[in-house]
């Protein structure tokens, strides 16, 4: 059976790695409990990365616990239309544009794009956004690897005792 791992549901699969996995799970939890970038906007970043990865499982994943996104904003981001749609502030657009540059290649991020994020969220906000994007993108990538391994390899037979 192919497991539908996503960035949101990855931690059980990684838990067998021990303390490092637990630490990464705690870092994930902290992303959604901070004052730098609104969690709803962070969730829109996750959906932006999912769209850029063309990852249907990630796009279909439920939002992290406690995070609610307005349907129209979610649909606009999934459609790649956030920059033309109503309902997005200049700060939202600055963050979502930064996320697209980050996904393409961090070396491609221009000073103007970074300055725009800083203008709305300050230097700590920019640093937090960079960390959060790394965490989100990494979890999407790890989930894709686990899904691929699950799809390509035969399921292990359960061991019965007695």
């Amino acid at each position, binding site marked *: 059976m192919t497991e539908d791992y996503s960035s949101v549901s990855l931690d059980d*699969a*990684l*838990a*067998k*790695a*021990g*303390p*490092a*996995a*637990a*630490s*990464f799970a*705690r*870092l994930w939890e*902290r*992303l959604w*409990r*901070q*004052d*730098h970038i609104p969690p709803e906007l962070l969730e829109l970043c996750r959906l932006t990365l999912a769209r850029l*990865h*063309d*990852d249907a499982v990630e796009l279909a994943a439920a939002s992290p616990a406690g995070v609610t996104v307005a349907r129209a904003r979610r649909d606009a981001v999934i459609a790649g239309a956030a920059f033309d749609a109503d309902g997005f502030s200049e700060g939202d657009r600055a963050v979502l544009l930064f996320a697209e540059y*980050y996904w393409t290649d*961090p*070396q491609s*991020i*221009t*000073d103007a794009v*970074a*300055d725009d994020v*800083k203008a709305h969220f300050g*230097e*700590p906000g*920019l*640093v*937090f956004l*960079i*960390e959060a*994007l*790394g*965490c989100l*993108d*990494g*979890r*999407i*990538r*790890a989930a*894709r*690897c*686990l*899904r*691929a*391994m699950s*799809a*390509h*390899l035969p399921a292990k037979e359960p061991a019965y005792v007695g």
Partner: protein
Amino acid sequence: MSAKPRATGPATQTGNVIRDSAMGLVPETVDEIIALNGHVWRDSLVPPTLLEIIRLRNARTVNCVFCKSVRYDVARADGLTEDRAELVADGYQASALAPREKAALALADAYLGFPAGMDADAARQVAAEFSDAEVASMLVALMCFNFTSRTAVSIGGMPEDPLPIMEVSVAIATS
């Protein structure tokens, strides 16, 4: 790549390169990021040599000048020579690296790819050499390495490439 840092550190000199960097501006995450680095190196289910090999593959892919120049002491103590470290370059599958090292790099490339993911041959290669727990351990390490190197590049202020190879203690990022 921006030569000018887009954020500056909190002006602390704790001796921890993460806490003293711009990442120190985010108190909600910095302690856990330091803890994560420590767990990745201290509690790994694969040896330091394998961790260093996938870290260097990540460093090459992300093109982080600092990450490419660093060699961690624990990996060298575990037997990773500079000649061997250079074998992580493209074409590693035909190199003198051991099958387990090549499988670890195949997992790293699957993670780092555009798109990320792996084909059936790579999945079999990885599964033939590593348990599920070891794969999970390496994926967490890859997330940590990729996250920190991409953070360094995104914040900017990278020196000219290349820097000289320098051996450092993992303690600078983990304690």
